[in-house]
């Protein structure tokens, strides 16, 4: 049990809410670059890649950088790549730079983040695991669950009303 909890905490340490999963964190040219992905876990379709750029020395966020996100995967021996600028406008947390990236298939991808700031350019890269698209019925389960739940509540409602009517009926002579 203890081992399980320790393993869980270690895995959870690599996860963050809202910003998404922490995919890679590397230092380059005096910049600390962290890449997050969402949804959690990352699946085929449109994914959000968010980048945090910090000064490696004091961890202060750098907000005036130019950030480019590349994702690539091998298809039949050829490398297919998508490159998109990541911006504050796309991010809900304005300390991050975000881009909506189309992952056209599940599998092993490679993500590269290029950052240009104050004359410095840095590039970090790492693997990205993209899971197959979730069946819509699982992705939107609350919308399908609400129907049987409301039908059950309606049935209960009718039963209660019927019981009340029987209860309030005058006794038979």
């Amino acid at each position: 049990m203890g081992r399980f909890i320790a393993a869980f905490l270690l895995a959870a340490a690599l996860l963050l809410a809202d910003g998404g999963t922490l995919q890679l964190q590397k230092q380059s040219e005096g910049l600390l670059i962290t890449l997050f992905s969402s949804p959690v876990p990352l699946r085929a379709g449109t994914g959000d890649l968010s980048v945090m750029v910090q000064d490696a020395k004091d961890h202060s966020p750098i907000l005036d950088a130019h950030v480019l996100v590349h994702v690539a995967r091998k298809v039949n021996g050829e490398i297919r790549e998508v490159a998109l600028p990541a911006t504050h406008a796309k991010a809900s947390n304005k300390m991050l730079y975000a881009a909506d990236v189309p992952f056209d298939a599940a599998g092993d991808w490679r993500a590269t983040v290029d950052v240009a700031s104050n004359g410095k350019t840095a590039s970090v890269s790492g693997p990205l695991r993209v899971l197959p698209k979730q069946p819509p019925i699982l992705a939107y389960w609350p919308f399908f669950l609400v129907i049987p739940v409301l039908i059950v509540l309606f049935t209960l409602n009718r039963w209660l009303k019927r019981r009340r009517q029987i209860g309030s009926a005058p006794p038979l002579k």
Partner: protein
Amino acid sequence: MDSALNAAALSWPIDAPTVLILALAALVFVRGWMRGRRLLRESDDSMRLLSFFAGLATVFLAVDSPLDAFDSFSLSAHMTQHLLLIMIAPPLILLSRPVLPLLRGLPKRFVKEGLAPFLTWKPLRRFLAWLVSPVVALLIFAGSMIGWHLPFFYELALSSPGWHRLEHATFFWANIIFWWHVIQPGPGKSKLPRWTAIPYLLAADIVNTAVSASLVFAGKLLYPSYGAVHTGSMTLLQDQSFAGTIMWVPGSFIYLLPVAAIAVSMVSSPNRRKARPVLVSAAERARRKALRFRIPASKFPLLRRLSQWVLLLVAIAVMADGFFGPQVTAINMAGVLPWVHWRALSVFALLVLGNLFCMACPFTLVRDIGRKVLPAKLHWPRRLRSKWVAIGLFVLYLWSYEALGLWNSPWLTAWVMVGYFAGALIIDGLFRGASFCKYVCPIGQFHFVTSLLSPREVGVKRPSVCESCHTHDCIRGNEHARGCELDLFQPRKSGNLDCTFCMDCVKACPHDNVDLISITPVKAIAADPYRSSIGRLSKRSDFTALALIVVFGAFVNAAGMVSPVMSWEHDGFSSKLMVGAFILLGVIVAPAIAFLLARAANRLVLPSRELSSAARRFALALVPVGIAMWAAHLLYHFGTGWMAAVPVVERAITGVVILMSMPSVPGWLTQAQLGLLDAGLLLTLYIAWHVATQYATRLRAALTLAAPWTLVSFALYAAGVWILFQPMQMRGLMH
């Protein structure tokens, strides 16, 4: 301002469903609060309103503000969020004594029929009383407070948005339960003495102190996630200690303040009782009701004329652009405004307010002008006094929309509009009344069917006034206004069918007794009263066919824009024929088979003489799921392309294409579409059940009767879900 602070201040991760829920809660509370003010003498309760709004604002601040954007980077931000959800929002909401205003704010019928059986159910009442009893509430409070702050569960919440939402929901609801005993918002009074709240609050403060102190004095990082990313000037441990302090100091203050207040109140006024609110008289209620802001009915005709002129000018501009502008859909007004905006907005207006487009119809304005020179003396042929011509035109529209690519051709769109103006002018120029609207216009028929779900209708305010009226100006007209051109006699009019909201009856009524009134939307389908100029819908095959074609047309029209169907239609030898075959199958053959099979299945329960009338009524019950599909489909176009109006109008005015709209699908869209489809299915099931109970009194017979129609509704729902999950073609955009 520091740029990081500036970035933080701009980070508002607005979550549409949360905002919608908070807005709905606010709306229902305000409605109920205003009703309470009208009914009760005690009306000085502005503080209740303020308190409820402050509570909702606190929830918004906790879950949709920069606090939420930064809760995964800073434990202090996260603890502030928890503080708001645990200690601020719940007591503020309960201080507003929200139960009665919320119940008063909901539709009366829903409260009486839907909620009352639950609210008066003794086991449920006992369970709720047990839930808010001090020991149980304190245990729930402590369990949620300690449980979620244990590293295992805290990390679980950080690891997934779903768990994170559950954590916040637990905090909020556990503390609604906790604060109930302290505030006692009613209705009803606790049997326990008031002093019991003092040890109760002290116990809560001890729990809060223990949790806070464990953060302040831990000496090591309790939640490893915060070690992965670190920002700002504080070290991770300082951040953790600060988070604990936030919980501890203001938290203790919040628990101890009511302790002091209760102690003082017990000492100062032990027997003081609050005066019970007294109901106001009927005359006073009417006076207060009259003070509500509303547009007087006498202004409706003027508003109608004004809106008709506005739409006429827009229509002229659209036609001109369609004929003479660039034949590129995305930069032409005729390629964007009718298909992306007008269709969606008219359906939403129908569902929220009423038949506003027919009210503002520019075609009838031209017809009215034309009638000054045209005779309009003939009577519409008796054989054509039904919906069959309009049904044929509606099917033709569904076919031409896809086969001729109406949506993709500004030129053809402009021609359709010209055809409409000409049709309205010629038909109503030759024939009496509003024959075009009643028997020909396919858009009008679509609106009539959709308006069965509208919450408003033009109706009689006081039926007793009509009983003593002998002039019947609402249908015959007088020197000031013409009567109803669609032959709807107000005292016998029921629902919105065939009503164009022209307001002629409002203007003509000498007793000022016709107005825009609120109705229960499903009632118009669930009941089958005699309707003026229509009769009973259970006797009208043309209305059944119209309803089925509108319902099945929704799915066929939406399916025509998804990849699998498009490739099937266009990969064959002739796309026009294939589209024709698809429309024929989907709009005529499929509903006919479904109708006949379900009708045949009803033989198990019903005698032959009742089969047709029951089947017609069940067919009408399908309207909600069909209209929901139309709304979901049109919402897709509107949600993805509403901004396309800006560059199109800019181009039409300046002649220069300044900005092209790029396709993008908002994150909330699929959820909203599924929500609409769910609502449509549930309404359909409810109406089908209601109709079944009118034909069969025994439960088993009613279930057997409704079963085949329930299957049809579920099949339609499944088709709708399948369509919504397919890759869809956008309209009016560059892609």
